[in-house]
């Protein structure tokens, strides 16, 4: 009935097929290339640090002018050996690979917890605290309850999920009800969680019988993730992948995820469209907390570790970095988690073989992320890299959601 649809002239103007995406490499290949180049650049930075820190090089450079080649060969040797150890430790065989995957497991879940909140417009700096609470509950169920196999594991996992979900949900609730800024609340709750854990470990409920040390018993065998073969890799890794698939489904194929994304992108329009912004915040933080809690279960149910005050390691913080590297998407988070896991595993091997401090791994991780996050910078070094389209600023959003 509208006149305009009948008029031939009003057809959408010249609509050439969006031609850009058809040329050259597909998007994922470009991203992969950029990521690989970023890693190369980061390794160069790491190499510089290795060289200046290496004793042999220091020694050789003290007589640099007498025998410059010594310095050079010392440097090459130092870097070569260090990186060889890194690679071998990360992917050099079945066991190293299993170790990398094991290290990646909690990072993936933690990264998902951060990504999911991100997509809802929330900055979840609290994965650390959520993970701790999840680990506390999972471990407690694991060693204090005695249930039949399978059931025990399931209940322990559930307890971990609930623990994390409560700790995360609290943040969502406070944000929804009072407007309290999630960054402050998550930072503070991280501290509260660690002090809570420290205190619990002095109580008889949590202390290992016969010990005064703040260390819990190891969970019952019935509550442990089954392991694959002789290494530390366990079922938790599969759960992490399933969690990633779940988050993908939640965000892209569920009504709840639609709402979360909408609230994350434009809370006002979402409210106008009848969504409850507060509810979305609570849901997002409950699920994010649950994911971090799952990471917590992987710490205490998977790798033979008891509950101690170091149970969270720095997984909750590394998770933030992993989430960036993964650009807030589940698949990206998995890949980023794997990379970080490999770097951790390789880093241990590197310090073992070449006495390179673990702090170097930390620097490498930070530098890799910096480069991956700034494709333009990588491209200005490696001119041959094709341009990426529509990526880059995906996560670039401010405090105001």
């Amino acid at each position, binding site marked *: 009935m509208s006149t305009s*649809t009948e008029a031939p002239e009003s057809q959408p103007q010249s609509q050439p097929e969006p031609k850009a995406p058809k040329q050259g490499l597909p998007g994922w290949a470009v991203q992969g290339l950029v990521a690989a180049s970023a890693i190369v650049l980061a390794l160069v930075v790491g190499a510089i640090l290795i060289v200046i820190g290496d004793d042999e090089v220091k020694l050789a450079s003290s007589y640099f002018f007498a025998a410059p080649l010594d310095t050079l060969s010392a440097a090459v040797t130092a870097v070569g050996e260090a990186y060889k150890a890194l690679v071998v430790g990360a992917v050099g065989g079945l066991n190293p690979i299993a170790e990398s995957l094991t290290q990646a497991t909690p990072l993936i879940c933690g990264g998902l917890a951060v990504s999911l909140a991100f997509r809802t417009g929330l900055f979840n700096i609290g994965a650390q605290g959520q993970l701790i609470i999840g680990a506390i509950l999972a471990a407690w169920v694991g060693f204090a309850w005695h249930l039949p196999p399978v059931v025990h594991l399931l209940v322990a996992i559930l307890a971990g999920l609930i623990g994390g979900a409560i700790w995360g949900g609290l943040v969502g609730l406070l944000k929804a009800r009072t407007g309290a800024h999630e960054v402050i609340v998550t930072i503070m709750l991280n501290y509260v969680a660690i002090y809570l854990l420290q205190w619990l470990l002095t109580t008889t409920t949590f202390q290992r019988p016969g010990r005064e040390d703040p260390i819990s018993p190891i969970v019952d065998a019935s509550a442990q993730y089954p392991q694959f073969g002789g290494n530390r890799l366990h079922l938790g890794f599969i759960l992490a992948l399933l969690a990633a698939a779940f988050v993908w489904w939640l965000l892209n194929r569920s009504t709840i995820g639609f709402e979360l994304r*909408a609230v994350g992108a434009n809370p006002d*329009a979402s409210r106008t469209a009848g969504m409850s912004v507060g509810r979305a915040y609570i849901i997002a933080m409950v699920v994010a907390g649950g994911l971090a809690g799952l990471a917590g279960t992987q710490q205490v149910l998977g790798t033979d570790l008891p509950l101690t005050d170091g149970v969270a390691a720095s997984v909750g913080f590394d998770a933030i970095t992993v989430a960036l590297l993964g650009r807030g998407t589940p698949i990206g988070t998995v890949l980023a988690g794997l990379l970080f896991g490999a770097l951790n595993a390789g880093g241990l091997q590197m310090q073992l073989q070449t006495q390179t401090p673990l702090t170097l791994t930390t620097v490498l991780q930070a530098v890799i992320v910096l480069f991956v996050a700034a494709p333009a910078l990588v491209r200005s070094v490696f001119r041959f890299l094709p341009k990426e389209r529509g990526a880059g600023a995906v996560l670039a959003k401010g405090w105001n959601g």
Partner: protein
Amino acid sequence: MSGSRLPGSPSDREAARMHLELAGLTRSFGSLVANDHIDLVIEPGEIHCLLGENGAGKSTLMNMLYGLLQPDSGEILIDGEKVSISSPSDAIARGIGMVHQHFMLVPVFTVAENIMLGRETTRGAGVLDRKKAHALVRELSDRYGFDVDPEALVENIPVGVQQRVEIIKALTHDAKVLILDEPTAVLTPAEIDELIEVMRQLKDSGTSIVFITHKLKEVKAIADKITVIRRGKVVGTAEPSATEEELAELMVGRAVDLKVDKAPAEPGEVQLEVRGLTVIDERGHTAVDNVDLEVRAGEILAVAGVQGNGQSELAEALLGLIPIAAGTISLDGRDLSGRSTRQRLEAGIGYVPEDRAHDGFVGSFSVAENLVLDLFRKPPFGSGVSLHTGEIEKNATSRVDEFDIRTQSIDLPVSSLSGGNQQKVVLAREMSRPLKLLVASQPTRGVDVGSIEFLHTRIVHERDQGTAVLIVSTELDEIAALADRVAVMYRGKVVGVVPADTPRDELGLMMAGASQREAEIAATEHPTTLGTI
């Protein structure tokens, strides 16, 4: 840049005339050629109107002139000399000023701070001299008959006044060429009158003005020359004497029916009943004051009023977006007062918010997703927790067709559509489910004539299907075109509900607070220019 001075006296300005020529300016965004070899000459002291559909490329052209965008090719000549304008500061330095289509004001700054930004008045050593700035603003504001308080925060003043602040800002930049990109979209008829007066003053003092608007009446009232752009190309020029229909046809490329075909309303049962509605806003002001309203099925009630007199709050309160202090809202006999926005939408209210980019759609979502923004939970788009993306896409394809939404793909983010098309997305979504009541705030703000025609037709069509329609608009044209009855709001109160054929002058006076009777008398004694525009 330090210190600031008032625009030069008229004699200064004679010397300051500028001859501006754009030659073959071309700019594309990806595969889209937004400007395709555009030539344009702006003579000193002329008011040059640019006309064109939404997305025709007007703003793009002006943004290149102002240094916000760089042309792919073509050149800009000032007084016959080729110049390159690589940033707004270049443009300002050369005497080009611009009032942007979207407000370029910092909401948390005062009026004076906004005006001095970029050319601050200082007491030396970079310390702001606010007193001097206030005096300056007062002086300019008096000179042009604007009434702005330099110390008010911009976020607290009505949009009409904000627009004046924008204009004062451009004036302090001593422009020889002043670009006004759709400045009238948010102004009331009286405010438009004032602006046109100011433009005449400026022109008399030698300033050239490029004036972009979608309102053909304004073009005819003020233009010296008219250039029409369609799909990035200049398709012709026109004289101000051309009829509105001729201009519209040139713009859109086909005949446009400026009058909506509208059969008389056949009102049915009362659908919306509002009693004693009172809304207190965040600052503790009574925004809506004890309002009673009824809208029947199959009729269009227009709420007229100067921006900031409570209409927006009325609409938001109907949807439950802001809490009400007192009163009841019932739809089809059902009390909705305590219900959530979602429940109200599900009860059969459709809502087109006033500020579409802010409240109407999620810019980074695709067209398809935005078309189900408030429908995604219900079949066929969703069931339980799962989302049916196939259905969502199907729906998008058919809505895009039906509403002639111009987009390269339903997967593109809505933020990449032009304003008019964004508005069509919102309307298409709200009209794609059975409604009892449609609440639409400023449904055609900033939309070109072709699209207005289409949107109006759709709204009337909705009415004819038996939906009660409540339109909030500051456009008397729109009210005249759509309304069956008009409720006029002033300071939160409904000062009168009058028939649609009430003379414009009378409506205008009621919008200024006169009661219906006073307005009738005054309108006959002192007719204003309102009638002509």
